[in-house]
Structures are given as C-alpha cells and as structure tokens.
C-alpha cells in the first residue's frame, strides 16, 4: 500500500468508527482529493463531514479549534506546510494554549495535516519544512512519519489524541510502498523507529530525509561502514532514549533534516542526545539539512539545496574515518526525485 492510501485508509476507518471525526480543507472534496488522501471520502461519508474551505487559513484554523472545543475531532488539511504561517496565531496562541490557560477544563482534539513540497521548482514558498517552529511550542505534538505503516498508525493515534497534532507529510513520500495492516492500529507518540541496525554511526533522518539516509547506509555498507538508520518519526515528544542509546553504541551522530539546520530539529536532536548522555560519552556529530538560503527553482541549484545520499554518505564516512580521503560515490538522483513531475 502507498503512503497516500495509508493516510486515506486511516482517515476512512476512523471516520467510520467515530462520527465526531470530520475532514475540512481546501479541495478535500475535489477530483484530486488532496493527492488522493481524501479521494472518495465525501461520497462515502457525506459532504457534511468532508468539506471544502474558503482560502482563510487563520479563520478556518480557528474554526477547527472551535469545533474541537465543542467536542468534534477535526482533521484540517493543507496542501503545503508554508500556508500554516498564515494560521500561526490560531495554532500557537490558541490551540496550543487553550487547555493550559483554561486550567485543564477544555480539550483541543485537532489534527493539522500539512505537506512539505519538493521538486519541479516548488521554489521559495512551496518547499519549507517548518516543523521546528511547532516543536518549539509546548502544547503541540509534532509528527513526521516517513513510512506508510507509520503514516496510518500515527494518523489514527493523532485523531484519537485529545491535543492539537501537527501531522507532517512529504510530497515525495506519497508514492512510497510498504506493508500496512488492514486493521486499525496506533503508533505511539514519542517513539523513533530503527530502520537499519549498525554499529559505526547513527544516521537520524526526518521525514523524506530518512529515505535518503537509507540509501546512504547501503553505500556506506559497501565501504565497510555499518550505519544505524533511525527514523525520528515523532519530533515532539522526541524519543531521546532511542536516539541516545544508538549514539552510546556508535559514538557518532549524523542528523539529516528536511529543513534548515539553524535552530532546527537537528539542533534539538544533537542537544537532546548530548544531555541524555550526560557528557560522559563523547561523540562526534554533524547536522545536515537545507542549504541556509531560500529554496531556488532552477533544477541544478535546487539539487544543491538538499542533502542527498551521496553527501550524506560522505559526511558519515568523514565522521567514521576523519583521516581518510573523502568517499567517492557516483551521484545518481534518487528515483522519486528524478521521476517527480509537475505541474504540481
């Protein structure tokens, strides 16, 4: 099953199970159905529970919060994460605060789904991974599943949770396939997933970056380096325990984000691991992410903007063998990037 199908199945199964769940978002009931993730849901559950929205991101986020305060369980969708910036006031000042500032007397069971874009010249404003902005705010949960299995289980978990959850998808993950059980299951918050075991270096990937980490891991193994690849999955709460245990074993940490590194999730992960290890275990580390510039549209520049399996493998190799010459690897473009075509 693909990532898209997993998201759709989780939504449909939860809507069938709990009539408080509904989906609202721009275009969720159109013929494209949010890349297929909401396709057919309006027909299946009726237009009262799956409906289009005006282009009013702050207002409609407030509407979702209000419906959640009233006891419903909205899923609010955004085709690009960049658009959440228009809703920051409702997310940060209201959704994240309501329970605490009203002394625990209300609940805000809200899921905000947002897609990070990439490729085909998405450019400056359709490509941003803004998860660290939300990780910064107590009262929110932030997850970024990379596999169809986690996408389904975490979406179900997010829908059932009584708190606002920022659920981050990635355009290039949508075609990914994996085994996904048909039945309902949940994946807990705060649990990272070890995708490949290894001893020499820990590669932590966030969202689509973990796919690139897996490719780097295969290259590294051809050169006799055993990398442990961990999908962070849950960014807030963060599974510091799993990450720190891996670094204790490998002594080296490379965090690869689908975002900028400065003040980013990668900074938080390195700091959290360092604190957890309490200074007693020195470890080498590096962070990788978007180049510290605006995302360009020109294909050759866009390529340079992102880490790729080759740059990741090279950086990991340098961590493991600092004195050796740089790893030489051929630079094939990852298939989902090479194959991705617009217009959107």
């Amino acid at each position, binding site marked *: 099953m693909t990532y898209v199908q997993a998201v759709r199945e989780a939504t449909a199964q939860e809507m069938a199970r709990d009539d408080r769940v*509904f989906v609202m978002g721009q275009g969720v009931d159109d013929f494209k159905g949010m890349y297929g993730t909401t396709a057919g849901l309006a027909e299946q559950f009726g237009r*009262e*529970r799956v409906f289009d*929205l*005006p282009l*009013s991101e*702050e*207002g*409609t*986020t*407030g*509407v*979702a*919060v*209000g*419906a*959640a*305060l*009233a*006891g*419903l369980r909205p899923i609010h969708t955004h085709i690009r994460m960049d658009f959440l910036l228009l809703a920051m*006031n*409702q997310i940060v*000042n*209201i959704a994240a605060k*309501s*329970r*605490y*500032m*009203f*002394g*625990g*007397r*209300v*609940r*805000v*069971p809200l899921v905000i789904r947002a897609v990070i874009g990439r490729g085909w010249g998405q450019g400056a404003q359709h490509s941003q991974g803004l998860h660290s902005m939300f990780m910064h705010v*107590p*009262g929110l*949960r932030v997850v970024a599943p990379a596999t169809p299995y986690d996408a389904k289980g975490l979406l179900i978990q997010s829908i059932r*949770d*009584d*708190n606002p959850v920022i659920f981050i998808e990635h355009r290039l993950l949508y075609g990914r396939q994996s085994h996904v059980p048909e039945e309902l299951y949940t994946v807990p918050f705060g649990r990272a997933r070890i995708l490949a075991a290894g001893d020499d270096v820990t590669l932590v990937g966030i969202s689509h970056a973990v796919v690139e980490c897996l490719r780097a891991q295969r290259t590294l193994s051809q050169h006799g380096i055993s990398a442990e690849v961990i999908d962070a999955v849950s960014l807030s709460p963060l599974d510091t325990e799993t990450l720190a245990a891996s670094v204790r074993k490998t002594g080296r940490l490379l965090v690869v984000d689908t975002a900028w590194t400065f003040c980013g999730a990668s900074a938080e992960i390195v700091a959290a691991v360092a604190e957890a290890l309490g200074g007693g275990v020195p470890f080498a580390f590096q962070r990788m992410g978007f180049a510290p510039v605006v995302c360009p549209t020109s294909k050759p520049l866009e390529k340079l903007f992102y880490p790729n399996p080759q740059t990741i493998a090279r950086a990991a190799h340098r961590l493991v063998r600092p004195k050796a010459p740089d790893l030489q690897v051929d630079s094939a473009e990852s298939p989902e990037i090479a194959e991705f075509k617009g217009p959107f």
Partner: protein
Amino acid sequence: MLDRNFYRQLYRIRRVEEELVRLYPTDQITSPIHLSIGQEAVSVGVCEALRPSDVVFGTYRSHAYYLAKGGDLRGMIAELYGKATGVAQGKAGSMHLADPDHGVMGASAVVASTIPQAVGYALAMKMRREDRVVVVFFGDGATEEGVFYESLNFAALRSLPILFICENNSYAIHSPLSSRQASPDICRKAEAMGLLAERLETLDIYELYARTCRRVTELRAGRTAPVLIECLCYRWKEHVGPGEDFAAGYRSAGECRAWQQADVLVTVGSRLNAAVRQEIEQSVEEEIREAFAFAQCSPFPAGNELYTDLYA
C-alpha cells in the same frame, strides 16, 4: 422580573469591578485587568436572552460577559488573585477567564482571535443539529483584523447559529475609530460578508435584549443568516488598569459625561421600588464580600501545578 434581573446583573458587575478598582492598588492582583465599567449593559442585555446551554466567547475585557453568562464569581476572583481555587487554578487571570460549565468558553488577549473559534463552535452545533447558539463579544478594534472577515465569511457561508456582538466604544487603547478605519460603518462590512447587521446607537438594554431575543430565536430555528449587532458604548476607565485617564489628552471627560448621565444601572434601578433595590444590593454585596474573602484566604497553587494541564 426583567427589571430585577437586569438590575441584579448590572449592579453585580459594576460592584465587582469597583471592588477591583478599590483593591488593585494593594497589589494582590498581579495581572492586567480591563474593566467594563460603563459597558456592562451590552453583556447583560445579550446574555439575559440566552439559555444556560448556549455558549459565549469573548475578549480580555472579560468580566461583564463572564458574570452575565453565569460564570462562577468566587472562581473568578480567586483566579484574579492567582489562587489554586480560581476557575483555571491561577493559569488564566483576568485575560483568559473561562468557565465552560456555564458556557463561558474563553477569552484571548490577542485581539479578535476568539472570533473564529466561536464560529467553529457554532459549526459543531449545526453539524449536531442542536438548537443552541453561540455569541461572540469583541471590540471595534477587532473588526480591523483579517480574521474577523474570514470568520464572518465562513459563518455566513455555512449559515451558522452565531450572533456577533461588536462593543463599539470607539477606541482601541487610545486610538479613535476615525484614525483607524476609512469607512467606519461596521454593519455595512458585515452585510457585505453576507450577515444581517444592525446598530444600537444608544445603550438601551431593553432594546438590545428584545433584539437579541428575536435574533436568537431565529438562529435556533435555522431561519436566518448569522447576525451582527453593533452596540455603541463607552469605556469609563482607562484601557487597562483601575484608573481614569481623561487627563491623558486622547479623550475628554466631557465625552464620557454624556454616557455617565445615561448610566443604564441608574435607569434600570429607578424602575424598581427602593425595597426591591435594597434587597438585591444587599445580597450582591454579601456575595461579593464572600467571594473576595474566599479568594484572599485561598492558597496559591503548589509548585507542581506548573506542569499540569499542558496536554490532555
């Protein structure tokens, strides 16, 4: 009966706030307060027309509608004192007063930001086919925020059971409406978004009550588009805090005097005979005395409360 209820509510809110004015200089209330003195009739006229099961949303200028809707007085005063017995155990203060058990869903210190939640709450009511309504209170300044228009559009688009009450006291902090809006006709803007809108030029509590009753009945029955009522009113105290600010130069005492001479509390009180008035006043005074004493002798929250209620 209406006169009695109005008087009781108006007197109670006025006297609670006068007590806050009296006690604020003792520094036992260590957070901002925005007083409604002079504007109480808007909250009372509207809330008197509501059922306990209806809900209201509002702003940091929270005391009048909170009390008029039935919010707990002891819990409110204790909340202002930052005590563990406050409605939010000391995490809200005056600016975020909420009492969901009595339909007071909350307030925000960010101007206009509760308006869309009120709309979302009304959406939920409509989806569940309830005959409840939502009222949201906000100031004239809030009508300058983009989210105000987004919210009106959505409410009208979905024909939601919601009443927007704009308390137009013609100032946002110290800025007059004329320095902020090119076309200060708030009702026309609401009409342009697809709402029904009407303005009350004087603070006539009976008229406001009658209109609210009519509108709310229609909203419950799903027979009308959402409604906005703009109530002209005047803030007697400074924007935030217990004092007066007529010497500051941005407005004159004379401007206020006209409103003070038409004090709704006095108008309503004069319709009751002295004995009834006295009985109401005595019971309210007793309740207020008790509430402040309760707040003063309540404990502060324990340190571990810092970490509770962040997540459900």
